[in-house]
């Protein structure tokens, strides 16, 4: 067990995210922190996890974190590499992923994600990169984990643009749209873990990282955030997790885009 000064909030976040993954998961991996968390899981408690990047690399086992979604390392260490149209048709749309792991620019209380635009679409204040694989990751994976640093600006009551659908307006909105997948089941931040309320589907805090207060979380959430009745404390990173994560990042080019 590490004391809080021994690790960074980012390390806490990546470690907590990694722990949510299971050994038999088949995971659609976004670049950046999702990639760090997925590979940490693979190098610790989930050695048989299948990691898949949208570049078509299936069952990849990179020794370093890729800077881009299509680094050669991903292809060279993969069980097989398929074309991008096949990846999206047979593998993602075909419903073969247990977990989709996404980042976000903005996320709202119902787990909807915006990575498209700030301001009006035709006259944007900030043009973000856009959806990429995320819209269909959000609808086709059995469940979705989101990893994102928590700020007032990123945790908003309602995203301005739904790039990736979470629970929409909450409740049974997913089912009403014909989606049979579970949707976002976990949001991991540098402060806490959040999970959707069983009924309303509003994200509520279920676990607080060491050294973080409820006020910290409230101050950095754009809606009146609620806390679960049985909120727990997130176990800090183990020494072994930290060692593996730091080794991984140290040998990766520029931190594999996690910075």
């Amino acid at each position, binding site marked *: 067990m590490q004391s809080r000064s021994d690790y960074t909030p980012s390390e806490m976040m990546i470690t907590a995210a990694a722990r949510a993954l299971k050994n038999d998961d088949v995971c659609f991996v976004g*670049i*950046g922190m999702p990639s760090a968390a997925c590979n940490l899981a693979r190098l610790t408690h989930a050695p048989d996890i299948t990691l898949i990047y*949208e*570049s*078509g*690399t299936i069952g990849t086992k990179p020794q370093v974190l*890729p*800077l*881009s*979604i*299509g*680094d*050669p390392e*991903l*292809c060279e260490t993969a069980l*097989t*590499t*398929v*074309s*991008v*149209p096949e*990846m*999206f*048709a047979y593998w*993602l*749309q075909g419903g073969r992923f247990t977990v989709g792991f996404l980042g976000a620019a903005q996320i709202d209380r119902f787990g909807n994600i915006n990575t*498209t635009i700030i301001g009006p*679409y035709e006259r*944007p*204040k*900030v*043009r*973000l*990169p*856009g*959806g*990429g*694989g*995320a*819209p*269909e990751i959000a*609808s*086709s994976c059995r469940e979705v984990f989101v990893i994102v640093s928590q700020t007032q600006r990123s945790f908003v009551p309602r995203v301005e*643009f*739904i*790039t*990736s*659908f979470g629970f*929409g307006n909450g409740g049974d*909105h*997913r089912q009403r*749209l*014909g*989606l049979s997948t579970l949707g976002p089941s976990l949001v991991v931040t540098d402060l806490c873990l959040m999970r959707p309320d069983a009924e309303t589907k509003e994200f509520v805090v279920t676990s607080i990282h060491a050294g973080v207060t409820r006020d910290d979380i409230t101050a950095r959430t754009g809606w009146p955030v609620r806390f679960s009745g049985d909120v727990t404390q997130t176990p800090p990173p183990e020494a072994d997790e930290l060692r593996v994560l730091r080794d991984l990042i140290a040998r990766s*080019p*520029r931190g*594999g*885009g996690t910075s």
Partner: protein
Amino acid sequence: MTKAVRFLSLADAIGECVRDGDTVAMEGFTHLIPFAAGHEVIRQGKRSLTLVRMTPDLIYDQLIGMGCARKLIFSWGGNPGVGSLHRLRDAVENGWPNPLEIEEHSHAGVAAAYAAGAAGLPLAVLRGYVGTDLPRVNSNIRFIDDPFTGERLAAIPSLRPDVSVIHAQRADRAGNVLLEGIVGVQKEAVLAAKRAVVTVEEIVPDLRPPSPNSVVLPRWTIDAIVEAPGGAKPSYAHGYYKRDNAFYAAWDAISRDRSTFLDWMRTHVLERGSESHAVQI
């Protein structure tokens, strides 16, 4: 239909195959991005292009910043692992150097649209865009009902570019092309297009035993082949050279400011000949 492939210089291939106003797809999913060809398009001052690409990368940032494009069809426009494409943002946010119309999709949508184009179909049908705001801002995303189950599915027009440009590892002397490693959507982009230009690392007597996930394009699917070693730099060519990650990081500062960008383009692209395929900082 079938084509009579020719081996051309880069200047001639781009000059003959890319025309003002064309819909142009330069594909390469992180890997094998046709930078040399894109730079030649810039040098030749092509205008009013509709650029198509799943992941507008630095090369599209450069084309847009140099005023070659009037429209962009895409699904993810960023500098992978680094951040924004500043020239793309400046065009969308401020209309500089000219307004840029955008048609925005998801990766699943664009990939399916290329595949449908390659298959000679007018539309792609997919389970996509459910619950997102993309159909609200893109009238080319519609929904149809399956006549058998009644299920609602997304439909988008297939992509059938006037010209597709890709970079590959090798061509043989007959003009057959091989690419390997991460093969992305390049086969579909070539087969979906009216005209196809391929730059290659080398022209060889035979294609050599290819690796498991290789793609071979027969000579009669290609209009022009250009020998352009280093033509994918600063992206990479599996088996030839690595991705220049430092350049991708450095591009952030170069591209943030309009005049820094223009200076860089002048020195590294405009004032260089079409024979120097690999641009470095």
